[in-house]
């Protein structure tokens, strides 16, 4: 186990930012911490790094208790903080070299690592630039380079794609996958569902300081009762027929959404086929037919009663 967090409680005065939060990260995985703004993602990372005091709980990194003086553990960690944290008056290459040098003493090795990191984040044409001359997206890439240049075993990335254009975002996400392929264990926080779904092997869904559920993408989706939604629109349909639709196998509920009906199915196969049979038998004419598999948003919705999307 690379990181183990047990029953972590963290208060800011009255506010409970982490409420018996648990987390386990295995070597080589990308773990996603997914949750809305203010759910405690950054607080969790800062507690794990011993930058924040906490009220209760146990934190182990690489099997050892983490303290502010655990320099040997820190040596193996890379942090990409949520806020861009670089020296304003050092260039791209100087910033990367400075932070890399806090871990890597060997000069030649460091030179190579710094070059690799800058190439990795795509800032090769900007090595002599000062941060204030970089666009927001490029600044975030520099922020990443400074956190990963030393090739750490464990990397924390705190919402590295916030306020970044699609191109930069794809670049960053691909890079993170590559880091993982090269053997780094990654803890990735985000409030973007798509990112978590695409990137993370395992996801912890957080809300109000608590970890609600954790599991792979598929595991999370199979946890909730709705497994499939089919949206249909008819040219004409009697209320009685709608009532009868509820008798189709596995149908849990039918909602009217404008002209359309959303039919929710619980676990089961052949849901679409069963619906098609029903349509044929009743000689209905449909204008629209879409099957939707549940998303993480549905998972979040069912767990908390609210949407994760903004």
């Amino acid at each position: 186990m690379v990181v183990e967090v047990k029953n972590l409680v963290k208060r800011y005065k009255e506010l409970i930012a982490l409420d018996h939060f648990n987390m386990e990260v295995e070597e080589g995985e990308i773990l996603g911490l997914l949750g809305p703004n203010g759910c405690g993602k950054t607080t969790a990372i800062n507690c794990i790094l011993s930058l924040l005091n906490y009220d209760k709980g146990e934190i182990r990194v690489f099997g050892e208790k983490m303290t502010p003086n655990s320099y040997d553990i820190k040596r193996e960690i890379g942090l990409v903080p949520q806020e861009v944290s670089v020296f304003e008056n050092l260039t791209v290459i100087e910033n990367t070299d400075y932070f890399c040098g806090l871990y890597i003493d060997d000069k030649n090795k460091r030179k190579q690592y710094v070059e690799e990191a800058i190439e990795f984040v795509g800032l090769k044409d900007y090595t002599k630039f000062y941060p204030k001359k970089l666009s927001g997206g490029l600044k975030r890439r520099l922020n990443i380079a400074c956190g990963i240049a030393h090739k750490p075993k464990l990397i924390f990335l705190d919402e590295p794609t916030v306020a970044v254009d699609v191109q930069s975002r794809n670049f960053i996400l691909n890079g993170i996958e590559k880091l993982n392929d090269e053997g780094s264990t990654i803890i990735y926080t985000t409030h973007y569902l798509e990112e978590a779904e695409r990137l993370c092997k395992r996801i912890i869904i957080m809300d109000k300081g608590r970890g609600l559920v954790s599991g792979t993408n598929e595991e999370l989706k199979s946890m909730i009762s709705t497994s499939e939604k089919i949206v249909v629109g008819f040219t004409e349909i009697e209320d009685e027929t709608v009532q009868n639709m509820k008798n189709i196998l596995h149908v849990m509920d039918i909602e009217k959404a404008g002209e359309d009906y959303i039919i929710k199915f619980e676990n089961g196969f052949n849901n679409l086929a069963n619906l098609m049979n029903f349509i044929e038998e009743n000689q209905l004419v449909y204008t629209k037919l879409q099957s939707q598999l549940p998303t993480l948003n549905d998972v979040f919705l069912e767990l908390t009663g609210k949407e994760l999307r903004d």
Partner: protein
Amino acid sequence: MKNLIRNIIYQGKNLLRDAGFSFWVMLYPLILAMFFNIAFSGMMDIELTNIDVGIVDGNPIEQVLEEIEFINIHKITDEEVIEKLDNEEIHGFIDEDLNLTVKKSGINQTIIKEIIEQIKQMEKLNRPIENYDFEANYIVDRNQKANSIIVVFFSLIAMFSTYSINAGISTVSLTQANLSNIGVRVNSTPLKKKNFLLAGVIVALFLNLLANGVLLLFVKYVLKIDLLKNIKYSIILIIIGNLFGVSLGMFIGASNKKSMNTKILIGVASTLFLSFLSGMMGPWMKDVIDEHIPILARINPISIISNNLYRINILESTKTVGEGIMILFSYCGVLILLSYMFLRRKSYDSL
């Protein structure tokens, strides 16, 4: 050690390239010195030659004026007075009752007036006027005025020796996870916080001492004011001023969570106020304090530095230097101790 040097180089670059820092620490002292030099130069270089005085022929004062080397006598008629004053051919006109007529006021007019006062006094005391050495008298007077400008310059140097306060504030901010984003990053690395801070303090002292050196050379070679005679003690005092500045900066930086700009403002305002008390805005302030609250001059760190600079370089007395150095060192000790209480924390309740 290698790590310390790397930290010093990078933190030094970061600070030196900061436009605000370069201006306030490197350039501003020179600008202020130049400004003071211009503002007070009237006092310093009184032209003691070619003061043109008009009198009518036969005025008994002529004999006296002839003795004074820097006065040119112009014999004119009563009717010409206004015209010659207007054309600035004469600086002033003295009538037979020793009344002075001038067109405008200035140094030369003041000197004429003082000479007349002097003559009247001598007459009253029945002293032979021929024995009076006007020139020597004016040079003494001029030196006294120059001395009070030197007080201003020593205050200026004392103030800028404590300007390491700015770098002290910013290095503490970079060190602390609860004060800056870089602090968060630095504290997540295996770099020990105290090493980062040590590098920052060395950079602060080095750059400010450099700026002080530039200021001293500028005053000596560009403004041509010779301030330092006792170089050894002067340098010691300036270095301690730098230490005091860094310590105060660290304390201001570490003791609260106000914004960086607010802290720098607090730092600059407090040094400016202490410098004002030590006579930087005009020597009269120093006189007032010396007369009414002499203890203030003994405990005000800027006064300690500027007064001792004055004493060792002008009065050539090192009597109070020891006491001054002791007091400044105690200030540094207390400030560093207080800062340490805030700085030793490694995890925080809130970032």
